[in-house]
């Protein structure tokens, strides 16, 4: 962390007029080597220890993915488009195949749709758990770092038995999914989700009701409903500000129209609301996994789809763990897209960081911005 005094001559301690606005502000550059920053830098302007302005400085993980996927065929691009958020790989993969299928006019078989939803919901839990563990680190709560990461391994094992990889699955392909359920998957999944829900109750006791957490989250970093909408925030950030927008309900894709679930919102828009939206969503996803396994029809999991992007435009959008992830794809008839625009949830939520951090104390900065669930790798692409 380096400190630089902004107006060089005014920042000395003997400054004549401390009441003058801006006379005593200090600009801090937090990150990228900082325990509260992640893969990015925040340029924070302080008055005392109150943040008056915060600017994210992204680009530390900008890998030019939009250019790369213009140069590779659509199947070889799947691992690349997963990488921005490997803790949420399946949902990003879903947006990609959805855009391609919209152009091709291919509809996957019903069992394939259910399997997609299954992995999506498992991924949502894994991603939220990873996020929660880092939230614990930022709060200095080591138990909350260890527990979610340990429970995340339950679902990682399940996903590994289904797809063969721990976190980067490349499981969804145009026309369906790569493989069917392994033997004994359903029983194991039901056992694990039930255990996980009990664990969430334990989290409740040790963390969500803990004054260590509530006193630093309630009323801190407020993002109003109006501001969240006009800034284009999405996912848990938007729902934490009281907007019941969820693409799984608003524009049901895959098998979500046949599944029964609730969209959880909180009205206050503070750090606490955003955290609790994540927790409610984990419960809902856990319930959804059991429901999917129960309702899953039999039949093939994949339909033949050509490796071609037909001429035309498509906009594939799905609700990923961090909000809406979408591909705006323009095809020319080749095996590569002419242009594939990649808009992720974190990228959209980047605009909310400055809004959330205004007026927050410096000590609450890491938890406040992390409550947005901003994953810099996903934002930079």
């Amino acid at each position, binding site marked *: 962390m380096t400190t630089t005094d902004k107006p060089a001559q005014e920042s000395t301690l003997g400054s004549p007029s401390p009441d003058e606005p801006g006379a005593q502000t200090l600009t801090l550059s937090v990150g990228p080597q900082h325990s509260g920053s992640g893969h990015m830098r925040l340029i924070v302007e302080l008055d005392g220890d109150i943040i008056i302005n915060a600017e994210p400085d992204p680009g530390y993980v900008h890998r030019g993915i939009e250019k790369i996927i213009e140069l590779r065929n659509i199947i070889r691009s799947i691992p690349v488009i997963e990488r921005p958020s490997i803790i949420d790989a399946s949902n990003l993969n879903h947006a990609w195949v959805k855009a391609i299928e919209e152009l091709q006019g291919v509809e996957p078989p019903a069992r394939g749709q259910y399997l997609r939803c299954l992995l999506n919901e498992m991924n949502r839990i894994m991603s939220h758990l990873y996020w929660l563990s880092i939230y614990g680190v930022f709060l200095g709560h080591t138990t909350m770092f260890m527990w979610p990461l340990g429970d995340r391994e339950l679902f990682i094992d399940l996903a590994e038995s289904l797809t063969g990889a721990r976190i980067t699955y490349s499981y969804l392909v145009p026309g369906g999914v790569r493989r069917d359920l392994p033997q004994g998957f359903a029983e194991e999944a039901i056992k694990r989700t039930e255990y996980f829900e009990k664990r969430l109750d334990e989290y409740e006791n040790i963390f969500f009701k803990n004054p260590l957490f509530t006193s630093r989250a309630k009323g801190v970093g407020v993002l109003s409903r109006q501001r969240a909408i006009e800034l*284009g925030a999405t996912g848990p950030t938007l729902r934490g500000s009281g*907007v019941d927008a969820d693409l799984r309900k608003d524009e049901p894709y895959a098998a979500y129209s046949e599944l029964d679930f609730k969209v959880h919102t909180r009205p206050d828009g503070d750090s606490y609301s955003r955290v609790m939206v994540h927790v409610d969503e984990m419960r809902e996803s856990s319930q959804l996994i059991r429901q999917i396994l129960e309702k899953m029809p039999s039949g093939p999991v994949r339909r033949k789809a050509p490796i071609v992007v037909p001429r035309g435009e498509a906009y594939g959008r799905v609700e990923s763990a961090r909000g809406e992830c979408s591909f705006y794809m323009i095809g020319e008839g080749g095996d590569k897209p002419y242009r594939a625009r990649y808009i992720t949830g974190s990228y959209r939520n980047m605009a909310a960081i400055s809004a959330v951090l205004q007026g927050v104390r410096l000590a609450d900065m890491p938890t406040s911005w992390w409550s947005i669930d901003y994953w810099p790798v996903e934002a930079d692409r």
Partner: protein
Amino acid sequence: MSLSHEREDNLIKTLKENFPTDIKDATVMRRSRINVTVAPEKILDIALFLRDKLGFDHPTGVSAVDYNRESRFEIVYHLASIANPAQRDILINLKESVPRNTPKATSLVRIWPGVENFERESIEMFGLQFEGHPRPEKLFLNDNWDGPPPMRKEVRFPTD
């Protein structure tokens, strides 16, 4: 899924009635996806109408596309609606074309503050210029890339 596009057609009708000359093209791409191509000098009025009268208050992104064969850039604003729950699934692609040699467009940050970062990205990736943009600086490419705007079609990188 019904095949009729009633809501989409109604939206297009309202738009065409209010801006008969400025809307060059408006089509239903498929269910709940609408493409509207407008004249670049009128985009501010149409955007304001979309936000205030039709309820498209939620910007979901801005894309730029390089049509180098037609010597133009297309700027696409992707808009969704939170205000009107009946059209939550509808996504409007508001398009404008700017010539490739003078890629100047009007910034829509004053209408949707959320498009600021997306427009900044279009500035650095395609070399576009947005008039009225509060911070026309680099977003991702600081220290990363000094060459010509990398997303332009003529910029090639070693492929495999």
